[in-house]
């Protein structure tokens, strides 16, 4: 499937920002299941300082807001040819070792809720890991219902599990924490999803990938109860949301920020 994506993020401030640096992880890579045919990003109100690949082979741009700017606009757009792999990405690429994805991060440390969520599946995991992760995905969807506005970017997996609600990011992080608890390496993927019947999307998407012996990395989108197919575009990877976040920044001064995202994904 050929997907056309236009993703525009606008930060507006009520006064000029003194100093702001942002790491952008907004450039998809060509990998198994997707070929980047064309991709460009443009920035107004800021300047790209450096571009490099991070420890997960994510393409990163470091952007500094221009002196006196009150608005920063980041536009990424391009075309990706995707293929339906039924979620099976396969062996990893890059140098990050598998064991790195076994250990919890602060945002994916299990607490009593996630432990309880995973405990019933412990017996089955060895005999049928794939089936177990599918069950886990269902259990997470049930335990953390999709609800907007109750969580924020820094909500931890356990907090979301305690609250019983959250967005795709929270569901993915709960899934990751629980899978690791069951002894499986797991990671976060940020990316895009073509939703049926609509071009305009509310926000970029996030899901989990779990390492299953014999298959390699397998994607699980808890929010939509599927394994990612050719409607999905993988952009950045990390051990949790924070490491794969499309934008991670630091800002000095006390200007009030307003964020506006416009995203179109179409065939």
């Amino acid at each position, binding site marked *: 499937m050929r997907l056309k994506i236009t993703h525009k993020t606008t930060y507006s401030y009520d006064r000029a920002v003194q100093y702001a640096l942002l790491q952008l992880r907004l450039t998809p890579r060509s990998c198994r299941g997707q070929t980047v045919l064309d991709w460009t990003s443009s920035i107004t109100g800021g300047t790209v300082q450096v571009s490099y690949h991070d420890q997960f082979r994510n393409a990163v741009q470091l952007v500094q807001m221009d002196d006196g700017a009150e608005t920063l606009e980041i536009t990424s757009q391009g075309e990706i040819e995707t293929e339906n792999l039924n979620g099976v990405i396969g062996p990893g690429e890059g*140098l990050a070792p598998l064991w*790195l994805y076994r250990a919890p991060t602060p945002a994916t440390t299990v607490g009593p809720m996630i432990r309880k969520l995973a405990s019933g599946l412990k017996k089955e995991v060895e005999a049928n890991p794939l089936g177990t992760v599918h069950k886990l995905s269902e259990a997470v969807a049930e335990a953390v219902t999709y609800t907007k506005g109750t969580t924020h970017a820094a909500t931890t997996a356990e907090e979301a599990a305690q609250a019983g609600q959250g967005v795709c990011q929270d569901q993915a992080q709960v899934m990751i924490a629980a899978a690791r608890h069951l002894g499986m390496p797991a990671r976060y993927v940020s990316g895009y999803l073509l939703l049926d019947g609509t071009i305009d999307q509310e926000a970029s998407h996030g899901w989990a990938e779990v390492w299953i012996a014999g298959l390699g990395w397998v994607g699980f989108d808890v929010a939509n109860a599927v394994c990612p197919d050719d409607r999905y575009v993988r952009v950045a990877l990390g051990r949790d949301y924070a490491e794969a976040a499309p934008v991670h920044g630091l800002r000095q001064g006390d200007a009030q920020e307003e964020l506006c995202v416009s995203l179109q994904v179409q065939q």
Partner: protein
Amino acid sequence: MTDRRFFDEMTLEGGDPRHPYSGYADWFSGEDPKALLKKSAEAEAFFRRIGITFNVYGQKDAQERLIPFDIVPRIIAANEWRQLEKGIEQRVRALNAFLADIYNKQEILKAGRLPEHIIAQNEAFLPQMIGMMPPGGVYTHIVGTDLVRTGENEFYVLEDNARTPSGVSYMLENRETMLHMFPELFTQMKVRPVSSYPAELRRSLSECAPPNFDGVKPRVAVLTPGIHNSAYFEHSFLADQMGAELVEAGDLKVVDGKVQMRTTKGYKPIDVVYRRVDDAYLDPLTFNPESMLGVPGIMDVYRAGNITIANAPGTGIADDKALYSYMPDIVEFYTGEKAILQNVPTWRCSEAESLSYVLDHLSELVVKEVHGSGGYGMLVGPAASKKELATFREKLMAKPANYVAQPTLALSTVPIMTKKGLAPRHVDLRPFVLVSPNRVHITAGGLTRVALKEGSLVVNSSQGGGTKDTWVLGD
């Protein structure tokens, strides 16, 4: 009197001087002990004037104070030094090869020569460094290899300081003091100079200019946490001596894709930064967001190849206590040679056989916490009471994997000047090593620490340790 259980570096059993000390002993016998004592007091005053008041090993809570200086030099013969140099160079090359491997392909883990959990469960491993290859594969540019001696040809590496070894300003100031107090000694004996260290540091750092550097002379800066840091004196001293900029985080900013320094004439790029700020505080954008001591974006600029950070972030994984016992294997794995310098035999209490040995010999051993530092949670068997031994035994049995044990080493002695004349005291040695893509440079000298208390094996300045000038003799 010299205690014969310990190797004395100055005096042989019959009372004759050992060969490296013969010249010094000759000179000493012609001196008036009272005059020397007076000189000793003068040396201290000279030292105070220079104003070294920082703490050598960086204990954060230690008060600023003067570390006592002893006027009797520690002397190492040319042939002894050559052997040490070979061993240190081999070890430091292995450390850098290990770091390059562990942050890239991890062949040593795949080969099963190092257990995965030693790295995977180690906080000193920095995931942000994965896939990062600094210029020439040099991760640890400045190394302080702590050595102890137990016999004529017996040297052991106590620890590899691969993060930010301090104390080099003591090496330089100790020599300065000795040259000032005893100029005649240096005309009589061939003592190799140490004064070129700052120039060598500058050269070595310059040779590590980042991949995208296209100028002629790289701009080098020393990044200090600031005046409140216990080693601030050393930071400013080194910057001054090597003609580099001394900067704090607030002076630096990412401009045009480089880390640049604010000057009266605008921003000037920094190509190589010798940072004395710990990893966690180095970059609030990538590491601890609360850090006020770091430069936001420096890690991005680093990964993009526009600055060299010395020592590289994440080098702590190479000098971790949990890793230490594997060093002989690490040296062999990367150099294909047996380690020239010995490791102190170490029992890993995580292994059942070792644990049972350690429990049986607790009163003879030194037991250390794997992730501890600064001597906390450590048991010195021979010095411990029965009650302390019993308490420690329980701790050890509860969490054996937290501990390693080593024999209590019979550290060599070198005399110090006391009111009653020369008296032997235990010493260790920290040589300073500089690594650039093509060269390992070891200054002929180092920092000798001495336990000033009679019989004490603890050379730490916080526990009554002092320093000595270290002489390496020329051929």
